[in-house]
């Protein structure tokens, strides 16, 4: 019977069109993902080459003054891109993957990036995760909205009613055929994507695949419940499309709005102002006062003493720069905490909005979520601090430029390898919603037959 149910469904135009559409979109999304990874790889390669050329050029220009040279020198920090990012680009195309840092005040440098189209924040990229979160549910609706009603409307239900030993088995058979087809296409696309993008078959990939599968099952369970409520095909289609609009577009946008308003970020501006003031005001402050504050932070450098109040001193200049970061530190921390709180709040809401949950899990396993970027920024602090601690003694002791082995400064790569997977948190809410709609469907089917 299943073979004939497959044949019967495969011969329908809706099925042929739907599968063709999703295969084309899936193919395009994989190509886009590949393009993204290629771009990231090219940027990383260019960063290595550019850093070498940049250092050589500046050493030639300012080879007689280390403090001046370090004013210009930038050191690249790369945010390593996981191949899974090709399946779920997330925000990684909005946030810079390569950050070139000077040892001056850091805060202002953190957010030096190109302007991006803000609407991309809402709609995202046409990557495979977009196809899974947005397009697959539409296809589930197109395949399911008339699962039962078409039998009644075309008159075949009479024959089924009299002939079938079990009508629920017949309906479940139809459901299973549609699910197997779409799940097969989805797994095929994920598999092709994994091969093309070079994704490793690890637990992150398994979680990505399971999330996609459970998300698909959720939509099937929801649609099955709705179509068993005995409405006609038009009503079913309307109801299901409304639910799609609410779950996939409106609710996530509402939550985004709510979180943005609930966690305002005045610190974004105050951090910048405090960092700039912290530095600029020091031009009009006595050098001694600035240096005292600096030595409080770094007592190990106290033996370099206090420069003359008259004229320029590189020790004092870098201490001034440093004070900008010190004086904006609290605001910066508060801002980081609030951004993390926004993300935590999103995750909480996502527990009851499956589309958000799926998207957040995809981004998380691909390392393209907001938390991942915050981890990168956190690491940037350490990277910057290490550079300072390495160069400060050389600047303060007026070392020769030639005394530094510049060849050692290849771009540093940040890899977020400390992530553990909490399967219950990632998949629990999806499983619960699936169970909920499955139970509701059982009651509806009983009434139906």
């Amino acid at each position: 019977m299943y073979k004939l149910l497959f044949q019967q469904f495969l011969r329908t135009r809706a099925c042929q069109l739907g599968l063709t559409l999703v295969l084309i979109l899936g193919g395009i999304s994989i190509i886009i993902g590949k393009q993204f990874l290629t771009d990231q790889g090219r940027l990383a390669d260019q960063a290595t080459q550019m850093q070498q050329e940049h250092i050589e050029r500046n050493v030639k220009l300012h080879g007689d003054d280390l403090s001046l040279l370090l004013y210009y020198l930038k050191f690249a920090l790369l945010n390593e891109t996981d191949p899974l990012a090709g399946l779920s680009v997330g925000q990684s195309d909005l946030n810079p993957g390569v950050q070139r840092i000077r040892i001056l005040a850091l805060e202002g440098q953190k957010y030096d990036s190109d302007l991006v189209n803000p609407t991309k924040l809402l709609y995202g990229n046409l990557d495979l995760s977009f196809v899974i979160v947005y397009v697959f549910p539409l296809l589930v609706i197109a395949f399911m909205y008339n699962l039962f009603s078409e039998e009644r409307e075309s008159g075949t239900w009479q024959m089924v009613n009299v002939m079938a030993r079990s009508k629920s088995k017949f309906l479940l058979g139809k459901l299973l055929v549609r699910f197997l087809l779409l799940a097969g296409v989805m797994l095929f696309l994920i598999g092709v994507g994994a091969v093309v993008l070079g994704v490793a078959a690890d637990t992150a990939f398994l979680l990505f695949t399971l999330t996609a599968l459970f998300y698909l099952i959720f939509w099937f369970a929801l649609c099955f419940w709705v179509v068993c409520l005995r409405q006609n095909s038009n009503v079913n289609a309307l109801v299901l499309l409304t639910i799609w609009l609410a779950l996939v577009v409106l609710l996530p946008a509402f939550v985004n709005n709510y979180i943005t308003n609930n966690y305002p970020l005045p610190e974004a501006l105050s951090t910048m102002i405090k960092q700039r003031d912290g530095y600029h005001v020091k031009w009009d402050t006595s050098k001694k006062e600035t240096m005292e504050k600096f030595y409080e932070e770094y007592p190990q450098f106290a033996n370099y003493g206090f420069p003359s109040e008259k004229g320029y001193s590189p020790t004092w200049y870098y201490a001034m720069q440093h004070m900008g970061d010190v004086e904006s530190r609290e605001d910066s921390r508060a801002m980081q905490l609030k951004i993390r709180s926004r993300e935590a709040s999103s995750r909480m809401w996502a527990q009851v909005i499956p589309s958000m949950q799926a998207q957040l899990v995809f981004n998380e396993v691909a390392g393209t979520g907001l938390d991942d970027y915050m981890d990168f920024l956190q690491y940037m602090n350490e990277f910057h601090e290490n550079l300072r601690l390495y160069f400060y003694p050389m600047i303060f002791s007026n070392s020769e430029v030639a005394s530094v082995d510049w060849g050692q400064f290849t771009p540093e790569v940040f890899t977020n390898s400390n992530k553990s997977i909490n399967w219950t948190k990632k998949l629990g809410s999806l499983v619960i919603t699936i169970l909920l709609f499955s139970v509701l469907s059982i009651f509806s089917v009983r009434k139906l037959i």
Partner: protein
Amino acid sequence: MLEAVNLSKKYGQKDAVVDLNLKVEKGEVFCLLGQNGAGKTTTINLFLGLLDPTSGKALVGGLDVVENKVSTNQILAYIPEVVQLYGNLSGLENLEFFSKLAGQKIASDELSKLLLEAGLQEEHHKSKLSSYSKGMRQKVGIAIALSKQAQVIFMDEPTSGLDPKATDEFTNICKSLAKNGKSIFMATHDIFNAVNVGDRVGIMNEGRLIYSSHTENIDASEMQELYLKTI
């Protein structure tokens, strides 16, 4: 094989079937005549278990349909006025599908034989059902009933819209089915066909069976006269 005992059905305050008492024996063809809305289709639906009676009983094979829906369903089949099947499957595939749905495992060549038995020529077996005429669809419907090994076949206006040749073919098939022991309950407007194919005919009006007779006791013109008088 088939019995209605004081069978009644109301839709709200409206009587659809009132105190119906009738019996159809094994191998017998019973034709029920009546105007639109007389209660013929409701009677069939009560026997099929698609509706529950307001009072009385519908018995199939001696079993109350309401209490034994699964058991009675296994021995009956239904051919509606227009046999609606899956247009994108062939006649043979539709037959295979519905026989499997009924829990029957029948080899492909046996299914072809059933279609031939129902009068569908072999050249049409693998054509898509969407290209079939009404008569051809009904033949597939009969083959489906045969595949289920149904003992009782209900037919609702089966000859409506059929051309004279197709009607004649259909009549012969019904007679052949009855000869093989199948009981047939047919609701129809077609008085001449009812007298021709039926062993017994009944006339229903406003939910009541107002006349019932063996066809050997009455010819078609007498039946038509009686029908016009009683409705």
